[in-house]
């Protein structure tokens, strides 16, 4: 019995060994890229000194968090992150669904493909390049808006990169411009999968186009809308670093309206070498983000089990 048991085990190992070997690079990578940094959370509770390493550095207790929340930065970056993400979510969803519904009305295949192709284009470029495109419009000296629009109207040129009041609008326009194609494609794929039978029946009943959209299209894409919304809410503490860092050119005068948690963490870490504050802010983001994802996923599970992440 003993021997056959051992042999069975050996056979089993031999059979499964190749799979473990195949999984190994992935496991090693997850360990280095994802799990070691989780242990690095301890940095937030230390006065980190790179020369002494994490474990040689002195404990700081909750000092880093106290400093962070005592400054007005914590409120400002949280407010900016939440408000921008909330605005982007609402505006993005409404516009993306509108465009997807309209795209579905365009019957010509070539025309529809062309529109999709063009509207999706900004999604494919990086924020670095996008910041050059934005610069061509709003640069104080050579920008199109100052020279081509304000000057002929007899208005004074605006120093866009130094005027806070415009930035909520500028960032919203940039974000919409870059991400609307993505949302449109997702909702369009959901609309296309709706059976034509519903519409044919509705037409026979004499339903107007508007009624068809309100009573057939919108209710049937509701699950997609809910899933997308909840997934976005789960990540509402994470901002699009490129948008808030590259487009305003990391300009200090704009910080009160452009700085989100990610930008704050980056600047504190790389430009000010303030490891205490940056790690405190980054742990704050991870922990709240974790709670949000867990709770939104629980909600998603309740609403539509198939779409839950886990």
């Amino acid at each position, binding site marked *: 019995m003993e021997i056959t048991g051992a042999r069975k085990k050996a056979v089993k190992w031999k059979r499964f060994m190749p799979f473990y070997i195949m999984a190994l690079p992935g496991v090693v990578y997850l360990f280095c890229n994802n799990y070691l940094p989780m242990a690095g959370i301890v940095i937030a509770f230390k006065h980190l000194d790179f020369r002494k390493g994490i474990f040689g550095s002195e404990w700081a207790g909750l000092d880093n968090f106290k400093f962070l929340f005592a400054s007005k930065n914590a409120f400002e970056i949280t407010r900016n992150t939440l408000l921008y993400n909330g605005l982007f979510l609402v505006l993005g969803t409404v516009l993306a669904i509108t465009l997807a519904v309209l795209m579905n009305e*365009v019957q010509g295949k070539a025309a529809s493909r062309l529109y999709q192709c063009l509207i999706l284009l900004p999604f494919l470029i990086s924020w670095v*390049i996008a910041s050059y495109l934005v610069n061509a419009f709003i640069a104080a000296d050579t920008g199109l808006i100052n020279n081509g629009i304000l000057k002929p109207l007899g208005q004074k040129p605006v120093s866009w990169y130094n005027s806070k009041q415009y930035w909520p609008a500028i960032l919203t326009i940039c974000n919409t411009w870059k991400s609307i194609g993505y949302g449109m494609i997702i909702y369009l794929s959901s609309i296309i999968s709706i059976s034509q039978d519903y519409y044919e029946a509705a037409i026979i009943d004499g339903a107007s186009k508007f009624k068809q959209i309100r009573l057939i299209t919108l209710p049937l894409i509701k699950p997609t809308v809910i899933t997308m919304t909840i997934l976005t809410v789960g990540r509402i503490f994470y901002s699009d670093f490129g948008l808030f860092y590259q487009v305003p050119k990391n300009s200090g005068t704009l910080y009160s309206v452009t700085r989100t948690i990610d930008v704050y963490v980056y600047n504190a870490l790389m430009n000010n070498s303030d490891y205490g504050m940056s790690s405190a802010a980054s742990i704050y983001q991870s922990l709240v983000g974790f709670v949000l994802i867990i709770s939104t996923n629980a909600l998603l599970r309740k609403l539509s089990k198939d779409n839950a992440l886990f």
Partner: protein
Amino acid sequence: MPVKSFENVTWKAAAHIILCAFALAAVMPFVLLIAASFTDNNTALAQGFSFLPKKLSLDAYVYIVREWRTIGRAYFMTILVTVSGTAISLIVTCMFAYALSQGNLPGRNLLTFLCVFPMLFNGGLVASYYVWSSVFQIKNTLWALIIPNLLMNTFNVILIKNYFQNSISPSILEAARIDGISEFGLFVRIVMPLSVPLVATIGLMGALAYWNDWTNGLYYLTERDGGQFYTIQLVLNSINENINFLANNSELMSRANIQNLPSTTMRMAIAVIGILPILAAYPFFQQYFVKGITLGGVKE
């Protein structure tokens, strides 16, 4: 009936008008960028950029040809990082997904958990930065552009695992196993060829992510010691940084410093060079991009 068709026509016209407007708005900045790069520099400074520049000039592109040592190298680095990053990433991801797709593999649940948990929780930028720069000493090496964050997307692992489980018939695998093929042989010669549509789509999205990445370079390369690894994105980013630095420290605005910076039209030309390959390849890959987005957007 005429009422009905009138309604249809109105809807269609409205759809065309609105979509046209959005499509134009999406493309306009690109047109301005290209027009700007062909504008004579003095005209740009005097009259600003416009869609129809008063005086055209090829100076910006002459500059690029002259500076090809820097820009060509950045181009080469972009291609090198994109190709090798995407290839390594696909190999690691698919092998891991294949192991996960084995229903009876002991420890499979643990592996799946290892893969899903990072989607929920992460150590944050500071801890990642510390691990990659101090523990693995990745700063100012080529690996800095390939490894952190981009190498294996756990969501893609799950997508590919599901595909392996649902779309490859177990009887094909069994037949091959009876013929005595090794598990590696099975993976390379049968599983992968059967998964080409999905793997190609995911590879394309991955290549786009590598092509567009500038954050790894921002964190792990310094201009002095890692400048030779700069990709096009990083060259553009560092031009931005230098201009911001001079703008904030006007006492350094000496002629020498300004002359070292490319002029405003030259910068636009470098940006054009950076997006040109994407613009050129895009029409041929559009459907794959669309597929990639719907794959990643909502699980099926």
